[in-house]
C-alpha cells in the first residue's frame, strides 16, 4: 500500500435516472484515518454516490479507486468483500428477524456446515452491543423497535463488518444528542491508519465535532471540499444552498393569553405512558423534548387513536372527545405526521401527487365521489414548488425521491390538509438546512393563522428555536413544562434526564409517590 495514496477516490462520476441527472462529473477523495463529511441539499446526489460505491447502482461514467487500485463494485456483496460497509439512509432490516439475526445476516455462526448456532449468534451480538454500548437486546424482533433503535441496529451491523471504508448515510437523523455522542465516539474509535469514514448529515452542528473535511455537492455537481477546522458552518451552508441563511432565529408570536384548544389529561398506556397531561393552545407551537424512548411518539399515537390508551381523557375546545382511530382524530381536525416516513408516512409505490393529496382527498378534491384531478395536481405542484421538492414531476413514484424530498412530501400532505391541530413527529428528519428554514417559516405561518402545532423533535436546537412552550418527557411521564423564556439547553436536559422510576430524588422533585419505595438508585445516571 502506497502511504500517499488516498483510501478511496472517485473521479468524474455521472449517473442518470429517467428524467433526473442525479450526478454529473462528481469527484470525491477519502483519506486514511479521516472522517469525510458529505453535505448538500436534499436530492443533491449524496445517497446516489454512496450507492454507486456500494455496488447497488452502476455508474454511467466515472472511475473508483481503493488504495490506488481501480475497482468496480458489481454488487453489494462485492463491495462488502472489498471492505466497503454502508449504512443506508433507508433502513435495510428484516423486521421479522431479531436484532442478532439482523446484524449477522449472511455471516451466521454455524454449528457445523448448514446448521446455525443460535447461542453463538446471540452471544456474539451481545458482545458487539456491549462493546458499542448500544441499548439493544440481541433477541428482540427488529419490527417492534423504535426508529432510533432500528438505526442502532444498522450501526451495529455496519460496524460488525471488518470494513476499511465505512459509509454512513444520515445515521443521526433519528438520534438524540446523547446517542449522537455515543455514535461519534464509536466513529473515532473506528477510524485508523487503514480506515476511513464517509459521513452524510444534515445536522450542521455535528459536522464540526466529527468531520475532518467536508465535501459539498449541489444539484448533482461537485462544489468544493473544505477543512472543517478552517471553515465556519456558515460558509459550508452557503456553499450548499448558494446563499447565506439566518440561523439565529427565535420563536415567533409567543403569547400567554391564548385559549386552550386541546387538553390531554392522565393519558396512560399499558406499555409506557404514565399520567401524561398537557394543554395545547390556539395558535401555539408546543415543543416536545425528551430522550429516546421518552414516550413522545407513543403520546402522539395515543392522542390520535393509532394506539389504544388505557386511561385518560382528551378534550378539544373544552369538549370531551373519544378518539379511537386516526380517522376519528381527522374528524376532530387533528393530524399526525409520523416519525417513520417509510412505514407510516408514505405510499412508496404511489406518485407524489397521490401522496400529497391523500389525506385531503375527501374534503378538498371530491365532488360526488369523483376526484378533481386538475385541482389536485395544481395543489401538488404548488407544494412541490414551495417546499422545493426535487422531483422530475409530480407523477414521479415516491420511492424514487431522495430521502429528504420524501420527507417533504409527507409534510406537504399535512400542510395541505386543513387541520386545527397538527402533531409533527420529527418533521425535519433528513431535511437540509435550507429547506428546514422554509419549513420553520411555514409552521410559524400556520401558527400565526391560528393553527396549533405539537412539534416533537430530538434536535434540541430546533425545539428551542420554534416552540412557544416546551413539554419535556422522560420514561413515559411529563417531567416539566417550560415557557420559551425558561427554556435553555440546560433546563430541558435537566428534565429530560429525570428518572423517577430509578431515582427517588427525581421522584421527589416531581412530587411523585412511587409504588415501590424499596427500589434504589441503580447508578445508571
Amino acid at each position: 500500500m502506497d502511504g500517499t495514496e488516498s483510501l478511496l477516490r472517485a473521479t468524474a462520476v455521472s449517473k442518470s435516472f429517467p428524467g433526473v441527472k442525479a450526478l454529473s462529473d462528481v469527484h470525491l477523495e477519502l483519506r486514511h484515518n479521516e472522517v469525510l463529511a458529505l453535505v448538500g441539499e436534499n436530492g443533491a446526489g449524496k445517497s446516489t454516490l454512496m450507492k454507486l460505491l456500494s455496488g447497488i447502482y452502476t455508474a454511467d461514467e466515472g472511475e473508483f479507486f481503493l488504495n490506488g487500485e481501480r475497482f468496480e463494485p458489481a454488487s453489494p456483496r462485492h463491495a462488502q468483500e472489498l471492505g466497503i460497509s454502508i449504512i443506508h439512509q433507508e433502513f435495510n432490516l428484516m423486521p421479522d428477524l431479531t436484532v442478532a439475526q439482523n446484524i449477522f445476516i449472511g455471516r451466521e455462526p454455524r454449528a457445523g456446515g448448514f446448521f446455525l448456532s443460535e447461542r453463538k449468534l446471540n452471544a456474539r451480538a451481545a458482545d458487539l452491543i456491549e462493546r458499542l454500548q448500544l441499548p439493544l437486546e440481541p433477541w428482540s424482533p427488529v419490527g417492534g423497535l423504535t426508529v432510533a433503535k432500528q438505526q442502532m441496529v444498522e450501526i451495529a451491523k455496519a460496524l460488525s463488518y471488518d470494513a476499511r471504508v465505512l459509509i454512513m448515510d444520515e445515521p443521526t437523523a433519528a438520534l438524540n444528542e446523547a446517542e449522537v455522542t455515543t455514535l461519534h465516539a464509536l466513529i473515532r474509535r473506528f477510524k485508523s491508519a487503514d480506515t476511513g469514514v464517509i459521513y452524510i448529515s444534515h445536522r450542521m452542528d455535528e459536522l464540526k465535532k466529527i468531520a475532518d473535511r467536508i465535501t459539498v455537492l449541489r444539484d448533482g455537481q461537485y462544489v468544493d471540499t473544505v477543512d472543517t477546522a478552517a471553515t465556519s458552518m456558515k460558509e459550508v451552508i452557503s456553499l450548499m444552498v448558494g446563499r447565506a441563511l439566518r440561523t439565529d432565529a427565535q420563536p415567533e408570536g409567543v403569547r400567554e393569553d391564548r385559549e386552550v384548544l386541546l387538553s390531554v389529561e392522565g393519558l396512560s398506556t399499558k406499555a409506557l405512558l404514565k399520567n401524561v397531561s398537557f394543554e395545547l393552545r390556539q395558535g401555539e407551537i408546543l415543543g416536545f423534548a425528551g430522550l429516546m424512548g421518552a414516550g413522545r411518539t407513543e403520546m402522539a399515537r395515543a392522542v390520535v387513536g393509532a394506539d389504544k390508551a388505557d386511561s385518560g381523557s382528551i378534550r378539544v375546545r373544552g369538549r370531551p372527545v373519544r378518539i379511537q382511530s386516526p380517522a376519528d382524530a381527522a374528524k376532530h381536525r387533528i393530524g399526525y405526521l409520523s416519525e417513520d416516513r417509510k412505514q407510516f408516512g408514505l405510499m412508496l409505490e404511489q406518485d407524489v401527487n397521490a401522496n400529497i393529496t391523500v389525506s385531503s382527498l375527501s374534503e378538498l378534491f371530491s365532488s360526488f365521489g369523483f376526484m378533481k384531478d386538475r385541482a389536485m395536481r395544481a395543489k401538488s405542484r404548488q407544494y412541490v414548488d414551495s417546499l422545493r421538492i426535487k422531483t422530475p414531476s409530480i407523477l414521479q413514484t415516491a420511492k424514487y425521491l431522495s430521502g429528504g424530498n420524501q420527507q417533504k412530501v409527507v409534510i406537504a400532505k399535512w400542510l395541505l390538509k386543513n387541520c386545527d391541530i397538527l402533531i409533527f413527529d420529527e418533521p425535519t428528519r433528513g431535511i437540509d438546512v435550507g429547506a428546514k428554514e422554509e419549513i420553520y417559516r411555514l409552521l410559524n405561518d400556520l401558527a400565526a393563522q391560528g393553527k396549533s402545532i405539537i412539534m416533537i423533535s430530538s434536535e434540541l436546537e430546533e425545539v428551542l428555536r420554534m416552540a412557544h412552550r416546551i413539554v419535556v418527557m422522560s420514561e413515559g411521564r411529563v417531567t416539566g413544562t417550560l415557557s420559551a423564556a425558561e427554556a435553555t439547553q440546560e433546563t430541558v436536559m435537566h428534565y429530560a434526564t429525570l428518572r423517577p422510576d430509578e431515582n427517588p430524588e427525581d421522584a421527589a422533585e416531581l412530587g411523585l409517590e412511587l409504588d415501590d419505595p424499596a427500589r434504589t438508585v441503580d447508578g445508571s445516571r
Partner: protein
Amino acid sequence: MTTPTATTETQPVAGGVSLSLRDRLQQFLAFASLLVIFVVFSIANSNFLTYGNVLAILYSTVVIGTLALGTTFVIITGGIDLSIGTGMALCAVMSGVMIVNLGVPLALGVLGTILFGGLLGLINGFNVAILKIPPFIATLAMMLVAQGLALVLSHSTPIYFNDVPAYSKISRGNLIPDFPNAVIVLTAMAVIAAVLLNKTILGRYTYSIGSNEEATGLSGIDVRKWKIIVYTFAGLFIGLAGVMISARLGSAQPATGMGYELQAIAAVVIGGTSLAGGKGSVVGTMIGALIISVLNNGLQIMSIPQEWQNVILGCVILVAVYADMMRKKQT
C-alpha cells in the same frame, strides 16, 4: 437510458396521466402478448378470425371477466377473494329462488341478486376489516359456506328459468343486432369499474390501502370503512356474475362455481395487478381475462389434443408475461 430496477420506468397507472392511448395500452402487462397470440391464431387457422368466433370468445369471457373486475379492487387493496366462484353459484341460486320459486318480478329479482352478492362481500369485508381475519382465510371460509348454502337453498337441484324467458335475454338477447347482451354488460361493467378505479376517491383509497395500509390510516382515512366498501363492491360483481351465468344457462346450477375464483384471480394477475397490492388496472384485468379465453378458444379451434392444451396454455402464459416484462424494461 437503462436503469437498475425493472419497475423504475413504469408510469403511475393510477389516474391522472395524460399519455397517448398507445402509450397507455403499452403500460398494461401482456397487452402486446394478447395481440401476438391473436394474430398467430388468426394466421394459423382461418376459422379463428370470424365474426362469430370473436363473439364466442368475448361471450365466453363474460362470467370470468365480471368476477375478475370486482376482484381487481380487492387485490389492489392487498387482499384476495376466494369466495367469488361458489359465491356466484349461491347468487345464481338466490336469483332462482327469488324469481322462480317466489315469483319476484324479474328486474327486482336481478337487483336483489346483485345486492345479495353485495351482502356476501359485506360479510367478507366485515371479517377482514373489523375482525382482522386474513383475507385468504375469511374468503376461504365464505367459499365453503357459499358452496354449502347453494346446495341447501336449491335442495341440490338446478332451478330452471323456463317460465321466465326474459331472464335468458339478459345474457343471450341482442339489444344490438347480432351482439349478445352479455358482452354489452361486461363492457359496461368494465367501463364503470375503470371510472371508479381511476376517477373516484374509492379508487384512490383502494390504491392507497394497498400501497401502505398503515400510512393510509394515519392520514386520517377510515381504512376499515373503505375496505368494507371494496369487498362489498366486489360482492356486487359476484351477484352480477351469478345473474349472468344463470341467464346464460337458463338455470341456476348450485354445484358450479368452484375453480372460477382461480381463473378470475389469474386473469387479474396476468393483467399486471400485483397480489402485494397497490398496483393494477381494469384494462389489465380485461386483457388478462381475454388472454385466457383467446388461448382456450384458439387451441380448441386448432384441434390441439386436449391434454396438450393445458401444457401449451401454461407455457404461453409464462412466455406472454415474461415477454411483456422484457418489452417494458426496454422502452
